[in-house]
């Protein structure tokens, strides 16, 4: 799962490789526009529906938080 998420993030913004263990939102690499692409890609990849209530900064701040989010939905 981690690799799949890393692939998604890198495709959206290759610069993410440099700070992959850091806070992705604080880094400024991802804004509202990229969040859209991340949500849609995660939904497609993991065949899930992410409730808007779960589309909050903390769930997309790190790779680990995204893993936790996906596991909570599946």
């Amino acid at each position, binding site marked *: 799962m981690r690799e799949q998420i890393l692939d998604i993030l890198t495709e959206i913004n290759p610069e993410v490789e440099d700070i992959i263990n850091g806070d992705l939102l604080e880094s400024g690499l991802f*804004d509202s*526009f990229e969040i859209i692409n991340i949500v849609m890609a995660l939904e497609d990849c993991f065949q899930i529906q992410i409730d*808007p209530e779960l*589309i909050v900064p903390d769930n997309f701040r790190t790779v680990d938080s995204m893993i936790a989010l996906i596991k909570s939905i599946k």
Partner: protein
Amino acid sequence: MINQLQAIDEYKTLIEEFKKICRVPFSNIYLMPNVIHRYIKSQKVFFEKSKYGIVFYFDEGTYYKVFLYIDEKQKFEISAFDKKLIVHNVYNIKQKNDELSYVQRRLREIGFTQEGTSVQIQGKTQDLLYNCRSVEKYAKTMEQKGYSCIKPEFSQFNQIEQIIADSKIIKDYHLTFRTEQEKKELEKGSYLCIVNENDEICAASITVINFGIAQAEAIAVKERYKMKGLAPILTYQRLKWVYDRNIQKIQGWILVDNETSLKYHKKIGYHLTDRYAEDWLLDV
């Protein structure tokens, strides 16, 4: 002495008379004559005339927008009023010269503080819409999840304006003042918002079409709804609304230190023009 401007002809006469005294005056007036006429008709323009020129005060409700037509080498005066004063100075960055610094120094002497600098952005509607095409699918998904874009009724405009004000990025003097009647006469869709399944307004935008160009006046998302992709959805819906009206160009202003917004708008295809605007504020 401060007088009320009665007619556009009076405005023109004032300007022409001063031009005979000062051949190259400084002016920050950028309003078109028909816009000035609108203000005059609403009895919202005042002026004071002196040897250094004319200072115009446009009543914008919570503040006066101050326009100068002056010999900037002279020490001009600006009277105190019962509301705050804004000098909105638009200039071309390539033509920035000493003339601006005379006025800047004098504004500081009077007590004005520089509040911020904005840069104008422009884009072709069709290109921007194409670049936002990935948002369309997301917008549909969010709609299925209860977040839909609507054209609000006039009764909701106050709520929308409050959301914009609460963003604290867009100040009251960044918005064009309109009377209640003028707001009612705006084309449906000038105000757009995203509501959730409880009909709560989560995000809103204001766009106005003037002289064949769309002016993107404001866009804001309520704090607790940020980072859900609502701003891109609203941006997309706004572009669609503009495109459906066969308007090919859209423009707006962004504060130069709002890096997030600049980055986002450049990403979808807006370009920065050479036009900048400084806001000088005197808060009474």
